[in-house]
C-alpha cells in the first residue's frame, strides 16, 4: 500500500499538465493565502480595537465562538446557491469557497489579536503613557508589538485550518489539492487520495514553518527573551525561567489558576 502511494507520487505524469501536482499545489496555495489575507485584514484591526478599547468584547467573543461552529460544507453549499447565480464564470465558484475560508480564518486571528492586546503587561502601557504617548500611539508602539506573538500564533493557526479546509474547493469542481481527494474518492483510487492527503499535510507544515520564521524575525527579541544567554537556575527548586506562553491552537487564553 505504501508502495502504491509512493509510486503514485513519483509517477512523472502526475507532475505535469493542468491536473498535475504543481498546478494543484499552486491553486491550493492561492485559495489559502488569498482567504487568509482577507481574513487578516478584517480580523487584526478589529481585534486590536477590541483589545485596546475593551468595547464590544462580549459580543465579538460570542460571535466568534458561534462562527467557529459553522460547518464548512454546509456554508459552502449555501454560499453556492446564494452567490452563484449572482456571479459569472469561475467567480461563481470561487466566491463561495473564499467566503467559507475567510469565515474559518477570522476566529483564530481575531482571538489572537484581542487576547494579545489584552495580555500586554500593564506596566508597559503605563510606562508608555508616562512617556506622553496618546491612545493610538500606545497601540501602535507598545500594544501591537507586544501582542505580536499571539497575533502570529493566531495567524499560524488560521493558516493551518485554511490549508486543511481549502480541499473543499474540489467539491465545487475547482482545483487545489482537494481534487486528488475527490477524484480519488469517486474512482476509489486509494493511492491518489492518500497522496493528496500527504501533499496537503506537507504544504501545511511547510507554510507553518515559513510563518514561524516570519514570526521569529518580526517579534521583538525583547519579548522572546532570545537575548538572554544567562540561564537562571534556582538551586532550591530546580525551576527554570518560564517560557512565554504561546497559544497555537487559537483557543481562548487559559485563566491563571489563582483568582
Amino acid at each position, binding site marked *: 500500500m505504501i508502495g502504491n502511494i509512493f509510486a503514485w507520487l513519483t509517477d512523472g505524469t502526475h507532475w505535469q499538465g493542468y491536473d498535475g501536482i504543481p498546478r494543484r499545489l499552486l491553486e491550493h496555495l492561492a485559495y489559502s493565502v488569498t482567504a487568509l489575507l482577507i481574513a487578516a485584514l478584517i480580523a487584526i484591526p478589529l481585534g486590536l480595537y477590541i483589545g485596546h478599547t475593551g468595547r464590544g468584547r462580549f459580543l465579538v467573543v460570542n460571535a466568534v465562538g458561534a462562527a467557529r461552529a459553522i460547518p464548512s460544507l454546509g456554508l459552502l453549499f449555501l454560499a453556492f446557491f446564494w452567490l452563484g447565480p449572482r456571479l459569472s464564470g469561475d467567480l461563481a465558484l470561487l466566491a463561495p469557497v473564499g467566503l467559507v475560508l475567510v469565515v474559518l480564518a477570522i476566529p483564530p486571528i481575531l482571538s489572537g489579536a484581542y487576547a494579545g492586546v489584552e495580555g500586554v503587561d500593564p506596566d508597559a502601557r503605563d510606562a508608555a503613557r508616562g512617556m506622553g504617548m496618546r491612545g493610538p500611539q500606545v497601540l501602535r508602539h507598545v500594544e501591537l508589538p507586544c501582542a505580536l506573538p499571539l497575533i502570529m500564533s493566531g495567524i499560524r493557526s488560521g493558516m493551518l485550518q485554511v490549508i486543511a479546509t481549502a480541499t473543499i474547493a474540489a467539491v465545487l469542481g475547482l482545483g487545489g489539492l482537494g481534487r486528488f481527494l475527490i477524484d480519488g474518492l469517486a*474512482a476509489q483510487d486509494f493511492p491518489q487520495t492518500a497522496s493528496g492527503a500527504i501533499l496537503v499535510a506537507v504544504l501545511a507544515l511547510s507554510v507553518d514553518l515559513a510563518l514561524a520564521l516570519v514570526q521569529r524575525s518580526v517579534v521583538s527579541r525583547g519579548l522572546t527573551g532570545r537575548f538572554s544567554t544567562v540561564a537562571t537556575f534556582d538551586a532550591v527548586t530546580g525551576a527554570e525561567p518560564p517560557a512565554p506562553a504561546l497559544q497555537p491552537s487559537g483557543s481562548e487564553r487559559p485563566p491563571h489558576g489563582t483568582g
Partner: protein
Amino acid sequence: MKRTKIAFAVTAVAALIGVAACGSGSSDPLATGGSASKASTGTIVVGSANFPESALLAEIYAGALSANGVTVQKKLNIGSRETYIPALKDGSIDLIPEYTGVLDQYFNKNAKATAADEVYAELKAAVPATMTVLDKSAAEDKDAVVVTKETAAKYKLKSIADLGPQAKNLTLGGPPEWKTSPTGVPGLKRVYNLDFKTFRPLDVGGPLSVQALKNGQVDAVNLFTTDPSIADNGFVILDDPKSLFAAQNVVPLITRSKVNPTISATLNAISAKLDTATLGQLVKEVVVDKKDAAAVAKEFLAKNGLA
C-alpha cells in the same frame, strides 16, 4: 467531595452521549451496520448512488419490500459506482438500483452489446458470482453529452460524433469518476476518438453541472436523460449513434444469497410497472418540486398497487 463532583460531571456527559448512541442504535440502520456481524437473515440493506434518481429508486424498492413483509434498512447516497460495488461485495449493502449498460461496461471490459435485450444478457453473464440482476425495467435513464442550444448551432452539432474536429478546443464536464470510467472520458476517446481540451470534474448530473453549462465554464456536460433541467434550459442532447452509452434499463443488482421468491416478485413487479416517462415524472417531483423521495416513492407504489 471534589472527586464525586468530577465523576458526576463526566458521567452526565457520558450518559448524554450514551443515550444518543442507544437511541441511534435502535432506530438508525447505520449503528447496527457498525457491528461486525451482518444484518440478520431476512433483512435486506438497500443502498443508492449519490444522485436523486438513484435514491428515489432505492426508496421505491425499500417501500415495496417493506410493504411485503421484508425488513429493510436503507443506506442512501453512498457515492460513485466504484464506491458502492465494493460495499455490495463486502456485505455492507445487499441491493442497489442499477442501469444495465453502464453496469455491463463496469464488469465487462469487452462489452459490445448496445440493444436493450443483448445488453441485459451480456450483463447477466458478466456479473460476479456473488451477485445477480433481476428483471430489467422498460424505464431507461441514459448518460448523455449535452450542450447549449447556442453551442449546437455554432458548431452544427447533432451527434457526439460531430464534436470530433472541435473537441480539442472544448471543455467537457462530468462527474469526477468520468475521468477514468469506461463510459466517460476514456469511452469518448475509444468510441468517438474525442480528445477534449480539458475535463472539469463537477457533480453527478446536478446543479453544479447545469450551472457550469449555463455559465459557459464547460462546453459540453454529462447529464442524465431524465433530468428535467435539460428541457427547462433548452439544452440539446447529442445523439449517440455508436451507442457508447448503450441501453440503460433500470435493473436491481442484488447479492445472490439474499434473493428469495418474495423479494424477486416484489422487485420484478416494480420493474414491470416502471417506464421512462413515469421515471422522468417522478424525478421531476423530487428535484424540481422538492418533494421527499420517500413520499414520491410511496405515492408511486400506491398508485400502481405495489404497496
